[in-house]
């Protein structure tokens, strides 16, 4: 299977672990992610707060660059996913807006017809297009004994309603039960990670981060699994600052869900970008996943 792929800026560097683990998992499951040639930044939320038309045009350039033979576009970053999907929806629902955006695209000799490409988040692709049977098949190192707290954030589950709940999404939960993990059903799994608040107003952002970490701790999770570079960054990189701010001592590894899929598929942690997280996952993995390899 082949999908057009929009990695997004973070994947290049900050979220390199997400990128390598995504590619590794794709190899195991047997699908190909063909990167859009010369894609540009999706504009994050910042562009949309300034100039909607330009924001959409910037995003639409990527849609227009999708190889005309594919109609499925995968984005692993929640924010990129939302911007791409939102722009596509706007162009489909509001022909006037679609016309204007295309006028802008025409300045770069491009054109995009709203609805041509189906924008999907990576989790949706793995969950729906492969599903329980195929994923179970590939498990060689079940995650028994590991308590994982799936964290979905906001942008994938809410603004554009899919088939999962906007309040208590379950798809990652289900996926990790297939892998043998103990899934922690904690109440804040789709609450906000603080988003760009970390850069605007730290006290607010830290409080949002604290709530998530606290809830995961209350429910005795070993690690939080995430599906967005922004969430990972906020929960992981800011964890020590949050500890300093509130005088807490959180030490919760924040790992991309693809990284743990890779572990269950028997891949080497090194191939999966482990070690790049600021709060190290290694001790937890060592303690919980003692060389129980089955084939």
């Amino acid at each position: 299977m082949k999908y057009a792929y929009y990695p997004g800026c973070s994947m290049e560097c900050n979220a390199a672990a997400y990128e390598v683990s995504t590619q590794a998992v794709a190899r195991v499951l047997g699908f190909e992610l063909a990167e859009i040639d010369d894609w540009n930044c999706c504009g994050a939320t910042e562009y949309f707060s300034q100039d909607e038309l330009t924001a959409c045009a910037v995003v639409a350039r990527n849609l227009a660059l999708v190889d005309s033979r594919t109609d499925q576009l995968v984005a692993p970053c929640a924010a990129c996913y939302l911007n791409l999907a939102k722009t596509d929806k706007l162009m489909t629902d509001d022909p006037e807006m679609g016309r204007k955006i295309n006028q802008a695209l025409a300045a770069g000799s491009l054109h995009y017809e709203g609805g041509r490409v189906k924008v999907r988040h990576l989790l949706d692709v793995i969950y729906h297009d492969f599903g329980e049977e195929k994923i179970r098949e590939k498990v060689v190192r079940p995650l028994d004994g590991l308590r994982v707290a799936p964290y979905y954030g906001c942008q994938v589950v809410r603004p554009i309603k899919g088939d999962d709940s906007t309040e208590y999404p379950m798809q990652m939960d289900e996926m990790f039960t297939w892998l043998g993990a103990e899934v922690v059903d904690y109440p804040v799994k789709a609450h906000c990670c603080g988003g760009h608040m970390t850069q605007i107003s730290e006290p607010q952002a830290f409080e949002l981060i604290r709530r998530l970490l606290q809830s995961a701790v209350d429910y005795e999770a070993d690690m939080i699994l995430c599906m967005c570079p922004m969430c990972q960054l906020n929960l992981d990189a800011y964890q020590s600052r949050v500890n300093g701010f509130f005088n807490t001592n959180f030490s919760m590894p924040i790992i991309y869900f693809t990284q743990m899929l890779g572990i269950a598929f028997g891949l080497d942690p090194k191939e999966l970008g482990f070690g790049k997280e600021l709060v190290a996952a290694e001790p937890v993995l060592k303690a919980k996943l003692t060389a129980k390899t089955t084939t």
Partner: protein
Amino acid sequence: MAERIGIYVCHCGSNIAGTVDVEEVARWAGKNIDDVIVAKDYKFMCSSLGQAMIEEDIKKEGLTRVVVAACSPHLHEKTFRRACENAGLNPYLFQMTNLREHVSWVCNDKVKGTAKAKAMVAASAERVKYQQPLTPMYVDVNPATLVVGGGIAGLQAALELADAGYKVYLVEREPSVGGHMAQFDKTFPTLDCSACILTPKMSEAGQHENITLLTYSELEEVSGSVGNFKVKIRKKARYVDYDKCTGCGICSEKCPRKIVDEGFEAGLGTRKAIYTPFPQAVPRVPVIDTENCTYFTRGKCQVCSKVCPTEAIDYEQKDEMVEIEVGNIILATGWKLFDCKKIPQYGYGRLANVFTNMEFERLCNAAGPTNGKIVMRDGKTEPKSIAIIHCVGSRDVNFNEGCSAVCCMAALKLGHLILEKTKAEVYSFYIDMRTNQKMYEEFYQRLLHEGMHFVRGKVAEVTDAARNPNEQGKLIVQCEDTLLGKQRRIPVDMVVLMGAIEPQADAKELGLKCGISCSMAGWYTERHPKLDPVATMTDGVFVAGTCQGAKDIPASVAQGAAAAARVQGMITKGKVMIEPIVATINEEACSGCRICNNLCPYNAIEYLEDKGVSRVITALCKGCGTCVAACPAGVISASHFNNQQVFAEIEGALWDAIAECREPETV
């Protein structure tokens, strides 16, 4: 001989005259439409003066056809037909033009409105010329009545009719009558004991000589029409012989199979595999729940049959079909509770101490699973604080747009019961406090006095994610207190969700069987929302209680009584008119192709083998006209809607287009 037509254009005060120049329409019709003898406009045609005017003109001017251009025929066609009849004109020589609903109320532009009105008057005038005198059929009204649904509304209707001396069949799909009211402990605003006021009615219905109770039964099929319905009812197998059983209850007592009662006890209590839903059930005859009975699932047990002193248990019993004939039908099928799991942020089903309103009613009920003790899900701990959340699934375009009308009051009632029975603090989270019936606002005042806390704000979420030590182990209700403009988090032990009152899941399906429709929200549509609230568009079918819209017990009872009164009116009159609108086949011309035969939904067309032609069985035909449109030989004719009439109507409606086409383009 040319017809003599009278045309009457109504102002309806300013309702029509505001957007249509009615005087001009009348003047124009008098001048331009052939055979029009009188054309008048009048303030209110349906007034007695308006009707008298028509009657007088028929007599004085010798009118042979009448057109009234006023409101919808569904409102006043009967009125004017009667007027014609009074003056000796066959009522089917009258035609009504709908200027109000179809022109003035939907149009802003007086010039265009007037033009449309003219075309519609012309259509009626052209058509009326071809109308034929018809003789309505009168049929006797069967004095027996079917009431579907044995809640308080259905019980009331059944008892009123039975007391008046008429036969009633009361069909209830549960094993006992009683409906939702049987589940409550107290009823607002007077706090009467629900059982004390309901049980007498239930047992009266069970014993009344004029009432045949058909519990554990469902409507299968309805045929016929007003005055003479034929109804097939499925009596589901109880596996207990109705006549032998004395209702001693030994079987239930001894039955070894205990299960959670998701029905009457709302999941809080248990019952046996052979059970009556509650001790005061009417009838007292139990039913076996075959999905859970060990004998039915595994072939072993039969304890009930061994202990039954009257040998009433019959494992071989089958569903039974009963056919009854009635003159009228009253639907009183009530409501169902909103599925509170659809709002996951309130935690129902996930957080143990979140309850629905109906669960809580059972908790408060002295005859309920906890003997009326208000305790948490563990069955023993008394809560120190309880939050009641209003509008769960109501006033929300994602679920039910409407207000459930009773849950503000029910919340106050539950608040009162909590304050009476426990020391808990009670919080009500409301958007608007809707207490607008007699003694309701006083009840609200009473709760304010009793110390119930009120927070104005729709709850955002109920969570167990504590943010500080005093929230630990509690359910935290997060909302914006809109009177303060501040976000608040209130930790409590228990949460009660005031789930919405929704239409029954099968309301639409049942309505269809009886020929009535539902509103977008799913409530049965009444004939007129203000002036005819219990009748429906289908003659002989009435609605009562919450199946027509969310309401409290007093209003449900009032509607039950009103529906019964309407039915009594029909019975006393003894006869009803049936519209003489049927199809007829011109046998001479029929080619015998038999295309029409399979088309009729009522199998009203038979094929006469000997003559090689088809014939309509008039008694079965309902006049839909499908066969008429299908006959390739064009030999079927629909009375009052024949081709000639419809073609004339089209021609009239397009008088201006025809005029334009007649004039050469160059002019």
